[in-house]
């Protein structure tokens, strides 16, 4: 075969294939970044990309400078106008993606393409700073395929292949590189503290806030992302006991509930707790950027690097910026603070003056009717919610200044925040110490993965009232209106909206998918320095510091490279079918005791065999003739006789004859 020789000038223009692949890579990068780019910027960049691809297809050539320069200025201005500056994650990425697309306008030579591809690889990685979920990572990794294919397309002198086939070798290369990549991933020493800047705030969902204003959970209750996953030692608690406490809120200003201001609330010992039964469990918490660690019901102690607060809230020493795993023990049957101190009683009864007069009147009326029976007043309030025409909805009517009055006597619609807030105000007005607790309630028991999946939509608020002799008792007024909220979750309680989304088999699929996500979150995203050390402990390395890891990384890389070299040096001997056939014949004869001697040529050997097996003398003589003919009469044995010889050898059977 004669390949057409190609003369190669220094800076040759690239061919259409390389440019197509480059455009594909750029389009992928743009697509990956489009969710967090302003829509107009993404659209404009997509237009530029498409136009340039079309223009380059018609006729190779650079885009004139009078077009490029204003576009560059326009891009920078747009980013500054949108974000205020060009530094930071969002503006930086927007600028980088924009520059990448503009680079396409002046891409004509191999050098330009290489610069573009390097930059695209960087932009691909930057996409992971926004979302490091499994799908996003896989899509980004697939983005490497067109990038690698583009680099391949730059090499001159190739065997022709179709565009889809051009992507395959990159896949093979990546697959071959995967073991080394995983090893490096496991062993690369992690930084104990960031070298620069902390990741920006919105990298993680914020989840529950440390204040509660009726109506502000709405976003949270429609967010189906996992908040945490809980696995229990032993059986999980029944659905109506799955209350995860995050914040305890005492302060009410007429509109919002807040925690006690730490400036005015001196640290106290955790409230005394009498425990009847407890349960052990492990929580894997998604990053929240807050310090609070949600705990089942009333926690007995705090995990490491966290403290148990007076009201049995658990606060980590620093905000949870990465996925956090912790083990805990909680009481399910308990008496919390059987005797209430004076300060807590005062806090638990405090209400802002001149708010909600009708609520106060109703509470006074109840107090008058039931006398000193606090439990009866609680029941009366729950009865009111149950029979008073209240409706559970995630889109309630707005409330005025006297928010509790408006809710109780006018709108009659709301969700957990409204009910717990109104209930707590009612209790305080009636003289019963009460407070609001927020956290999560419910969750989905994933029986395939044996864990409880708690989503942001499981956020919940309830009340605790202090009853003499029983301590703080949890009362969930939402349950009085919608018992399914407690047994099935917020979305079920909100009625039949999004029914297709709640479809059974789809749910099943989503829950199975969550197992994969959990594996990804725990195995990959949650793989930190601590887990890295834990990985090496079984191999007898107790204290894996950076130097040890570096040495290990070097040793194992060398090992992998040695394996790779062995592959590279492997040379397959050209197969010789004739020799193989002779070997087979030798084996057959050797079984009958006629082995070929080391110094014996084929002719001598086969003659000897023919003498030893007189019954098959003719057959062996014919085989020998064929062999000698095929081996020595031609440079290459001709195909047809060769095939005949192979068949003859295969069919050759030694007939047992009595000598």
């Amino acid at each position, binding site marked *: 075969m004669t390949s057409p020789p190609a003369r190669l000038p220094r800076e040759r223009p690239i061919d259409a294939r390389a440019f197509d692949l480059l455009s594909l890579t750029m389009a992928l990068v743009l697509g990956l970044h489009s969710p967090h780019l302003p829509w107009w910027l993404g659209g404009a960049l997509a237009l530029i990309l498409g136009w340039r691809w079309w223009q380059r297809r018609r006729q190779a050539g650079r885009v004139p400078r009078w077009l490029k320069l204003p576009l560059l200025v326009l891009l920078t201005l747009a980013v500054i106008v949108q974000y205020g500056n060009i530094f930071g994650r969002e503006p930086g990425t927007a600028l980088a993606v924009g520059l990448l697309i503009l680079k396409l306008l002046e891409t004509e030579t191999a050098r330009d393409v*290489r610069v573009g591809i390097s930059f695209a690889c960087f932009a691909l990685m930057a996409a*992971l700073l926004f979302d*490091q*979920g499994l799908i996003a*990572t896989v899509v980004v990794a697939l983005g490497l395929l067109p990038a690698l294919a583009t680099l*391949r397309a730059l*090499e001159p002198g190739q065997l022709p292949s179709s565009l889809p086939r051009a992507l395959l070798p990159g896949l093979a290369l990546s697959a071959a590189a995967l073991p080394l990549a995983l090893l490096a991933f496991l062993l690369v020493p992690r930084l104990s503290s960031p070298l620069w800047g902390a990741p920006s705030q919105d990298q993680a969902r914020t989840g529950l806030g440390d204040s509660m204003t009726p109506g502000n959970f709405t976003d949270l209750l429609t967010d189906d992302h996992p908040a945490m996953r809980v696995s229990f030692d032993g059986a999980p608690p029944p659905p109506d006991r799955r209350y995860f406490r995050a914040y305890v809120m005492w302060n009410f200003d007429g509109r919002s509930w807040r925690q006690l201001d730490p400036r005015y609330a001196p640290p106290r010992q955790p409230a005394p707790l009498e425990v009847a039964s407890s349960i052990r469990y492990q929580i894997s918490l998604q990053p929240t950027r807050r310090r609070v660690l949600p705990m089942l019901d009333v926690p007995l102690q705090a995990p490491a690097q966290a403290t148990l607060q007076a009201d049995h809230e658990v606060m980590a020493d620093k905000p949870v910026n990465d996925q956090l795993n912790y083990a805990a023990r909680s009481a399910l049957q308990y008496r919390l603070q059987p005797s209430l101190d004076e300060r807590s009683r005062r806090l638990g009864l405090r209400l802002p003056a001149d708010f909600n007069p009708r609520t106060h009147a109703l509470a006074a009326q109840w107090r008058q009717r039931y006398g000193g029976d606090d439990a009866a007043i609680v029941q009366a309030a729950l009865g009111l919610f149950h029979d008073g025409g209240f409706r559970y909805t995630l889109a309630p009517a707005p409330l005025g200044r006297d928010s509790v009055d408006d809710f109780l006597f006018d709108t009659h619609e709301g969700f957990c925040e409204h009910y717990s807030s109104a209930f707590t105000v009612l209790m305080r007005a009636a003289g019963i110490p009460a407070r609001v607790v927020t956290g999560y309630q419910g969750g989905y028991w994933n029986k395939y993965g044996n864990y409880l999946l708690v989503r942001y939509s499981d956020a919940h608020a309830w009340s605790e009232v202090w009853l003499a002799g029983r301590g703080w008792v949890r009362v969930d007024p939402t349950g009085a209106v919608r018992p399914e909220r407690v047994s099935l979750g917020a979305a079920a309680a909100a009625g039949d909206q999004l029914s297709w989304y709640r479809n059974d088999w789809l749910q099943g699929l989503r829950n199975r998918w969550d197992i994969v996500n959990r594996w990804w979150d725990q195995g990959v995203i949650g793989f930190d320095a601590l887990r890295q050390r834990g990985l090496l402990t079984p191999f007898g390395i107790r204290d894996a510091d950076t130097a040890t890891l570096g040495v290990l990384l070097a040793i194992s890389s060398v090992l992998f490279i040695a394996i790779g070299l062995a592959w590279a040096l492997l040379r397959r001997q050209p197969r010789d079918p004739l020799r193989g056939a002779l070997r087979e014949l030798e084996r057959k004869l050797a079984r009958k005791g006629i082995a070929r001697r080391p110094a014996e040529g084929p002719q001598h050997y086969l003659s000897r065999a023919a003498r030893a097996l007189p019954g098959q003398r003719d057959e062996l003589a014919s085989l020998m003739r064929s062999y000698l003919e095929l081996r020595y009469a031609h440079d290459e044995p001709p195909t047809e006789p060769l095939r005949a010889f192979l068949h003859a050898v295969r069919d050759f059977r030694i007939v047992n004859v009595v000598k």
Partner: protein
Amino acid sequence: MRDLLQRLQRWAERRLPALTRYRRPESLPIELHRRRIYIVPTGFGLGFSVLLLVMLVGALNYANNAALLLTCLLGAASAASMLVAFRSLDGLRLGHIRAGHAVAGQPLELTLTFDSGRPRNAIRVDLDDRTIAFALNGRASTHVKLALPTAQRGWQPLPRLRVWTSWPLGLFRAWSWLHPEQSVLVWPRAETAGPQPHAPADDARHMRLHRGDELAALRDYRAGDPQRHIAWKASARHENLLVKDFEQPQSRPQWQLDWRRLGGLDNEARIARLARWLNEAQAQRGHYSLWLPGNEIPGGSGPLHYAHCMSALAQLP
């Protein structure tokens, strides 16, 4: 500066052959094996590794494991591409080199025949500063044509050839030197103008028109054709008369080109003149003989004869 560098390189190759990977000429076929393939990262490869480093530090800084995984994957793929580059050259075999004819000053066409047991992409051969890229499909030999610049007549040894590749990603460059022990013969350059050779005394005989006596073809009868040329037997099977057409050779000069008759010129001028005469004789499809010191070539014609004469001229001391 360039000259100095080249002198330095030549000196280093002479004194430190192992370090400079200088190889003595060797006989064909040459098969590349691991001992003679060298790999270094390309400029792009160095830049790319800096990029990988930046990505690594970024991923570690933000404790973003997905980004770290991606960086590791890209890095490992780059490392694997080094092995692929090596494998593109390993086992490549230069079977033989066929040289064409060229006069001094014109490029000489070399045909290199490569074999390989498997398909290979983007193999490049450098000769001086010219590069040819080609692919091997792994089944049959591949012929690659290279132009070798020539300066003067005579035997010219083949220069070193660099076989290299930066397949697949352009990150690494693997190369090997081939120095085939083979020389090519470059024909002398003809002078541009000068006198015609003298015709020998008995040239008149050769110049006389004479009828060839070989039967060339049959053609239709034209008025005036001699009767004895009519092919009666063939005409009997045909509508009209056919005439045996005999070859009518042109008046061909029988040139006797003689070195001794060009006294008063120096060697190279004589060779250049003889070369021009040979060219002219060949262009006129003439008949000629050549006398050279120590080498007498009897009369003949045709391209083989021409090549024979030119080669003899080229090899004159």
